[in-house]
């Protein structure tokens, strides 16, 4: 068992900057939870508080029934007693030690008997497929291999919880995909409870059982990847997840479209201030064919961007630029007129506070 409960966690830095603002979240045993958000949203700070490297200003952290930190009782468990393994963004391999020594160091500190040390090191080396690198130093191996060593170093200690702080952000694009699937494979195999910090929505989407989207220290939404994508709690979450980004129509910027859409939505649109829809929800046709059950608007193709498996269309309509995604080759060129058609379920509707109504 390894469940984490965070209650009303607050972290204020010098100068009264609130990095984390009354965060409450529970992570179930065996979950892979991502903290997702832009830089400065408090995700890394939260992870460091979990690890015990940073003291919270107030709140509680529990691991199963054990209180790791509590501002009310003053209890604080130091990092090495928490049973957590942390992999840093920079990997933080000790450059003066070989791969083998890097992994062994922690085992020695934990007073693991020598025979077991060797056994465990051999097994994590096999697990992470870094055989043959044992005698190398960190500067002699590639970034991806360093990453694996950093993981091996923590896994050798058999942590109850694995904490990963943007572990993929220093890798190049190719390696990142490779390590991403490696992480998924590892998690499926070991089923450790894992907390993963990232600003890359794609990583969060592909890896997580649940995602916690954060902004300015506040939790925006906590849910499965599909919930986050399909039912964003607010406009920020809708905008942060998805690429190309969600299309937004507002009352001020495109009143004509906004009014027509509101009329089409009828009762559902009550209280709406902003209307959004995903690029793949748009159907693009050369000419308008009146369809009562759907909403339509006219536009001009501004650019066609083929990505290989699909095509991104940039469409200008009433001075607004919209992104559409097509799976078949479009028969459009820049400058062509077109009609955009949307189904009712495609609409994400937000109120004046940017919270989603439906």
């Amino acid at each position, binding site marked *: 068992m390894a469940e984490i409960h965070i209650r009303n966690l607050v972290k204020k830095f010098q100068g009264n900057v609130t990095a984390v603002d009354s965060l409450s979240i529970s992570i179930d045993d065996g979950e892979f939870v991502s903290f997702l958000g832009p830089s400065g949203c408090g995700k*890394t700070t939260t992870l*460091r508080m979990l*690890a015990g*490297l*940073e003291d919270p200003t107030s709140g509680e952290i529990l691991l199963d029934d054990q209180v790791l930190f509590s501002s009310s009782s003053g209890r604080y468990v130091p*990092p*090495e*007693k928490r049973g*957590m*393994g*942390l992999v*840093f*963004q*920079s*990997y*933080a*391999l*000790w*450059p*003066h030690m070989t791969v083998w020594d890097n992994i062994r*160091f*922690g085992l020695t*500190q*934990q007073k693991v008997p020598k025979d077991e040390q060797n056994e465990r090191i051999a097994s994590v080396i096999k697990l992470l497929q870094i055989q043959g690198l044992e005698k190398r*130093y*960190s*500067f002699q191996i590639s*970034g991806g291999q360093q990453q694996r060593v*950093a993981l091996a*170093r*923590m896994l050798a*200690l058999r942590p109850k919880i694995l904490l990963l702080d943007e572990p993929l952000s*220093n890798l190049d694009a190719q390696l990142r995909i490779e390590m991403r699937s490696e992480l998924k494979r590892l998690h499926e195999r070991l089923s450790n409870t894992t907390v993963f910090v990232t600003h890359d929505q794609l990583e969060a989407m592909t890896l997580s059982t649940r995602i916690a989207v954060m902004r300015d220290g506040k939790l925006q939404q906590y849910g499965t990847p599909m919930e986050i994508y399909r039912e964003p709690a607010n406009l920020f979450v809708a905008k942060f997840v998805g690429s190309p980004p969600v299309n937004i129509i507002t009352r001020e910027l495109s009143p004509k479209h906004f009014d027509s859409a509101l009329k089409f939505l009828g009762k559902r649109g009550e209280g709406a201030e902003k209307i959004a829809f995903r690029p793949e929800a748009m159907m693009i046709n050369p000419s308008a064919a009146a369809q009562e059950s759907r909403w339509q608007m006219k536009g001009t193709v501004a650019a066609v961007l083929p990505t290989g498996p699909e095509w991104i269309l940039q469409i200008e309509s009433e001075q607004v630029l919209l992104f559409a995604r097509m799976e078949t080759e479009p028969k459009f060129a820049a400058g062509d007129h077109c009609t955009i058609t949307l189904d009712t379920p495609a609409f994400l509707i937000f109120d004046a506070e940017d919270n989603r109504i439906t």
Partner: protein
Amino acid sequence: MMNPDDRSLTALVRRRLYRLRHDPTPFIAFLLVAALTYLVLGPLLALLSEGFRVQFRDISRIGEPKGSLTFYYLQRVFTSPVSESLFWLPLQRTLVMSLVTLVGSVLLGFILAWILVRTDCPASGFFTKMMILPYIAPSWTFALAWLTLFKNRRIAGPMGIMETLGYAPPDWVAYGFFPITVTLLFSLFPLSFLLFGSSLQSVDVQLEESARMVGARKEVILRKIVLPMLLPALMSSGLLIISRTIGSFGTPYLLGSPVRYTLLSTALYGAVQRGEQGIASILTMVIVLIGVAVVSIDIYFVKEAKRFVTVSGKGSFQNRQKLGILKVPAVLFLIIVLMVSIVLPIATLLISTISYRMGIFTLDNFTLDYWIAPSISQLAGISGILRNPDVIRSAWNSVRIVSVVSLFAGGIGTFIGYVSVRYSGSKIAGYLKQLSFLPYIIPTIGFGAAYLTLFAVRRGPIPSLYGTMFLIILAMSIKYLPFAARAGTAAMMQLGTEPEEAAMICGAPWRERFFKIVVPILKKTLITGIILPFISGMKELTLVIFLATPGIELMTTQVLRYIDYGYTQLANAVTVVIIFVIMILTLLLQKVTGSGITSGLRGN
């Protein structure tokens, strides 16, 4: 226009000339290579030639004609009965003294760096700035202050402050090993402080945090993670300090010679004074070789250290260790170091210059005579330094020489950078880089002696330059070239060739490109490249000790002259002026660059 297809010789030459006029870089490169080869390698070759050939004065002793090959000098220095006092004893003393200075300054530098970088010690910014001051002041300032405080009757001049106060210091306190080591330690600890400081800052905190995560205790982290990471800085600062102590002359001269405590540098000085050119050359070679060995080891370690450079993590989590109850002792310690290393020496010098008799602190003992009197009765009618023609002349010499040197060194540095970038990766660029680095690894005293050897007599078309200001300018420019060249190359590297190429395409001729594109963009760096040599030049003593003659005294050599005459207060007053000028320039430099003296400190 020319016909590009014309293959006749005249057309070819004409095309080449046209190109050269359009882009004189090859011409500049040729000039640099020729001049630097002579000015950097020449002195070293001259040493070999003088050290292994019979000198005029030794013809009868050796029994061979002048100029023939001989190992007489080598024998005399290493194996003859006089070799003990000529070489072995000074060598042994130099090594012991270097080692003690090294251990002391490394320890002091490390403790200071730890307090100021890794703990929540208050006013760390202020203290960091102040700790660099001893490095800015001329190294012999401390020796001078020591003499002022502790000198006894063994040498001429007024009584030292301690003796006036009723305590006559014994010789071992006043002169020799003890004071030399202590004063060198206080002038050199900033070096290791700076190195440790910057490497402590660059050690990724995540390295320590991951050690904490796997359960290592604080002292284990310090011993197994942090200290190994600091090893390169330790080696570097150690070797730099050794190189400095071996090459320094002022302090051993001031504090060693009264009791004949001779170090390698003063032994060399003695040989030159006695006119023993052959022996001086051999001694210089030894000093040069030690210097080269030391710096080569350092370069090796700097390279080794490169592998310790890791992907840096997030810098925002620089956890500073809480000092707690140690806060007061830590600050007290910093204040004491500051007092002893900078306030006390400078105050001693300053107070001595406004006291009739040193060590008496009454109002009627106060005087400005040493500064402004037309004639000082105790000093045989010499006038105060601000109206003393000798001092004014030497100050004017210093300013003139050093100004030319800074422009010269800065200029050559810029051109070296320019050529290196234009010919990036070529043999010429590599040769220039190594050549311009060589003066850095030659200990200063050896460099000065080598220049004396090369230019003392006429060689081929090049006349003897000894006794001219030009020789001092040349020697200083080349000695400071490594810094200037490094600054120049770094700046040009940063600039790249594109801005100039863009101007080339616009049709701008070379002069326009260089002075209207390259120079203005690099203004800041170039100014740094000029002010830095100026500061070094103003306080330079060791390099010029062989090159300055009574006809062209510099401010620094004037100080030595006054000490020799026993005019302690005058020497101190001139030193105060030098320190004052240097401080102002350093502040100016900080204003211009926004950073300061610490940048451009390391060679390589």
